[in-house]
């Protein structure tokens, strides 16, 4: 004889094939406990279910399966009252809501993986870059009032901020290329307080550079653990960017390589689909060194090749977690040489 075990918010049922309830065990009426039981029941047999199984066996049932059951499902409201689990439908509604809030909380916790950290960090780096650029532009304009000649000579932003932070006013600067301009500068003079404040500003900009460095190192470490193949093939920056654009490693792993090829080129793609403009050949993967090093006429083909390998890498990282980056890289390089030699 066949029977099934059905676990619900109000407890576990043992149901025969012709929809007779053979056994029933109530849950304790506590949303937290019920949620934990239902959660556990998804992967294993909880004690209540085992007890039901024993009872069914004693009644002579041989084929016992854990399933959902349409009869129980549609009649559960009536059953909840009949079995005296609740007194009213309103009480039941409240309980269902509470149990599922707890259940959803558990699920939300499980749904977020380490790749979510990569996405946040990748976003933070991007925003940090934007902020640093804006602030350095401000610093250049500001300090330019005092020492305009320096703007052209020191091109690197970080260096520019470092000099201000270290020396303060232009008279104090010791730098082989700058010293000669000190005396005849057309900039205005600053007093001590003026210098102090711009110096502090430069110091904070430098802190942001340091933070950026720290973040990119952290992101690289994370990637090496979460997506080693992708990191090796794409480089840390691009790997993080791809995970972000896809919305997680799982989503990236499920994407066809043609979608990965065009991640970040959605605007151009849809323009093309609407019949305006050429089809894009690459999205963010254009920053990949192999594409950067290739002549224009080969870029489309190489982009296709790279995205196919990145797609495989993401799949390995998410599903099998072995490290096959080296051989994949060799294969990729070989194929790129073939394209270029044609």
């Amino acid at each position, binding site marked *: 004889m066949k029977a099934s075990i059905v*676990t*619900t*918010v109000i407890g576990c049922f043992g149901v025969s094939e012709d929809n007779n309830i053979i056994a029933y065990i109530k849950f304790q009426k506590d949303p937290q406990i019920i949620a934990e039981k*239902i959660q556990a029941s998804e992967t294993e047999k909880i004690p209540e279910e085992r007890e039901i199984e024993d009872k069914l066996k004693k009644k002579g049932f041989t084929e016992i399966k854990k399933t*959902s059951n349409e009869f129980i*499902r*549609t*009649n*559960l*409201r009536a059953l909840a009252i009949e079995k005296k689990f609740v007194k009213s*439908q*309103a009480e*039941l*509604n*409240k309980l*269902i*809501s*509470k149990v*599922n*809030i707890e*259940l*959803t*909380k558990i*699920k*939300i916790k499980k*749904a*977020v993986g380490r790749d979510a950290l990569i996405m946040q960090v990748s976003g933070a780096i991007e925003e940090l870059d934007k902020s640093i650029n804006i602030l350095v532009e401000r610093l250049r304009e500001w300090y330019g009032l005092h020492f305009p000649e320096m703007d052209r000579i020191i091109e690197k932003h970080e260096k520019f901020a470092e000099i201000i932070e270290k020396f303060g006013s232009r008279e104090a600067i010791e730098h082989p290329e700058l010293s000669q301009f000190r005396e005849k500068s057309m900039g205005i003079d600053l007093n001590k307080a003026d210098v102090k404040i711009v110096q502090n500003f430069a110091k904070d900009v430098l802190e942001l550079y340091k933070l950026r460095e720290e973040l990119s190192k952290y992101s690289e470490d994370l990637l090496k653990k979460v997506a080693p193949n992708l990191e090796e093939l794409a480089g840390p920056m691009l790997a993080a960017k791809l995970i972000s654009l896809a919305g997680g490693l799982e989503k990236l792993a499920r994407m066809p390589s043609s979608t990965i090829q065009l991640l970040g080129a959605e605007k151009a793609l*849809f323009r093309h*689909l*609407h*019949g305006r403009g050429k089809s894009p050949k690459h999205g963010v993967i254009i920053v990949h060194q192999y594409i950067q090093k290739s002549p224009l006429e080969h870029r489309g083909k190489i982009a296709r090749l790279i995205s196919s390998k990145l797609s495989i890498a993401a799949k390995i990282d998410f599903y099998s977690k072995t490290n096959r980056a080296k051989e994949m890289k060799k294969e990729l390089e070989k194929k790129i040489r073939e394209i270029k030699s044609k």
Partner: protein
Amino acid sequence: MKINPHKKFEGIFLVNGKLATVSLRPGTTVYGERLVKSGKKEYRIWDFYRSKPATAIKKGLKEFPLKKGMSVLYLGIASGTTASHFSDIVGKDGLIYGVEIAERVLRELIIHAERRGNIVPILADARKPESYENIVFGKVDLIYEDVASKDQIPILIRNAEKFLKSRGYALIAIKSQSIDVTKKPREIYKKCLTELEKHFDILDKVELDPFEKMHLFVVMKRRN
């Protein structure tokens, strides 16, 4: 302040001409909407720029079957902007099962679900109704779907087959841009409607432009 019940729809009010519902949890806002106190009741203004059913009502929808005490299956509940007004309308004796695939927005919903007591958050994919069949008790009176997905229509039909009462209501906001960006919205609507007509009687439909671009709001009744 002039407060009148809506001429046609139960549970919906007009506060100085603006759509509103009576708050189930006075004193709290869900998405920054305006609160208006009047006597013992508090009204929450229903922003038709942010909630598609409100837009549809604003644009002259003739049928809006949501009523007090109903149980509702809401596919794509997100952070609960619209759902909070649904929750006001169905009240304490009603229940809203909210299915959502993205855990980020569900985090916000949970806060309101805890306060309101008639919202059941479900982290699941609406494409797989089997995955929440043990949570949805019995059959529901109404299904509302607002998911931005290519297979919007099949999702609604499959959920209705499983969870909707016979002669129950189905509401959908069809987003033509999600189904095919290259085709004209009207073409897509037509196709969707023929598909829906196989299972439902269409009671009313209204386009949501310009408030929600390229959306069609449809109210239906299950045929069998």
